[in-house]
């Protein structure tokens, strides 16, 4: 290891952090887009009419059974050019991540909806809520709350998966490091630094979410106990 190493890492840091910004932006917008698309898909697959359930199931199952990278490259080199677009790297990877996440999130939401007890649904119905109100005020909040750990896990997976965008040329954290070590040949050091940044981000996020969940649930449990007493 050369004596210039700390110097090099210090020099690499601004570019890596810039990449980190892109990574975070990509993950966050893909998560939002995925939720916006995934929640309706999940509801449709859970209690939609048959003609709707079938294509949604087909979509969800086929996306879930191919590797993300295949889907990403397909969108970038296959689908978008076929539709007549000349895709920008960012647009195609964002689109791919949203479509891909939507399938996974739809499945999680569907699991949450299936876990809703018939009595809870009956209570909502007997209050005279319309179907939309039942979904909006009773079913979805319960489903989201009960699947929260899984949703958080999916979000963290997504954060890690955005490293694949480097392959279609988005300069996010992984690609930024690649550019640096292609010039400096300090592969090992830069890769370790990148790994550390990903680790701090993902681990910190998962711990924070766990803590927040525990606090929320603890409050609710004490409320429940006091109301029963």
């Amino acid at each position: 290891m050369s004596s210039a190493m700390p110097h090099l890492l210090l020099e690499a840091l601004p570019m890596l952090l810039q990449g980190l910004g892109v990574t975070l932006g990509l993950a966050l917008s893909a998560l939002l887009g995925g939720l916006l698309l995934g929640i309706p898909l999940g509801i449709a697959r859970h209690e939609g009419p048959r003609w709707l359930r079938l294509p949604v199931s087909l979509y969800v199952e086929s996306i879930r059974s191919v590797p993300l990278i295949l889907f990403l490259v397909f969108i970038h080199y296959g689908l978008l050019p076929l539709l007549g677009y000349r895709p920008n790297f960012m647009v195609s990877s964002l689109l791919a991540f949203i479509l891909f996440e939507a399938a996974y999130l739809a499945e999680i939401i569907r699991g949450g909806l299936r876990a809703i007890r018939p009595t809870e649904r009956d209570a909502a119905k007997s209050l005279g809520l319309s179907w939309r109100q039942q979904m909006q005020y009773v079913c979805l909040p319960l489903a989201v709350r009960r699947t929260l750990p899984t949703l958080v896990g999916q979000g963290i997976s997504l954060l890690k998966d955005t490293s694949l965008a480097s392959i279609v040329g988005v300069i996010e954290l992984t690609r930024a490091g690649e550019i640096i070590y292609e010039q400096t040949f300090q592969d090992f050091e830069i890769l370790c630094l990148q790994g550390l940044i990903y680790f701090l981000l993902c681990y910190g996020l998962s711990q924070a979410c766990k803590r927040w969940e525990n606090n929320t649930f603890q409050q609710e449990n004490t409320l429940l106990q006091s109301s029963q007493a």
Partner: protein
Amino acid sequence: MESFFSAAVQEAFLQGLCTTVWLSSLSGILALLLGLLGAFCKLFGPKWLKGVAGLYVEGFRNTPLLIQLYLFYRGLQSMGVTLSPEACGVLALSLYTGAYLTEIFRAAVQAIPQQQTDAALALGLNTLQTYGLVLLPQAIRWALPPIGNQLISLTKNSSLLAFITVSDLFLVIYKGAVDEFKPVPYFIEGALLYMALTLTLSTGIHGVERWLFSPKHPTTNPKAARLEVQP
């Protein structure tokens, strides 16, 4: 039936598929062993071993597989250690999946109620019998669906090995699609092959699940279980 692809391309697809299947199975077996070892360390190890296992699990679960692959391949190369790309791929893939499996195995054993252990000990079973005959058979049933999911993920993740120059199924697809400018047929063929792989795996796992829950299996049939314990 007339095929779209020439014989040479079909041959390449077949070879890629074989590589993917072979490397995924090898990594799958290694990952299962690693997972068992990790869970064992986390459950029964002394404090420092628990710490090491915890560090391993969190480290590998919270970094992207792509970074791990690059680290094992390019990173080690730049440090003067050269492994074949296949070896690096299998190493990274099994360590990554092993970290997830460690947590699954650990959670499965811990999910069994304490009363089961108490009952087994009260019957006069020793520790080995308690684990072998009472706790592990129950744990494996609980853990099987998530293990299956991990093995399916592993098969899909093996596509990333293409980026450390392993000529697996994905590299065949990628080269054909990008270099030969024929993306759509290659992608469709590739997607179908990956779907076939994951479908085969999930069907197999369903089969094992059904067998574990079938009346013939000792954990669902008390009479069979008693017969096994008595000698």
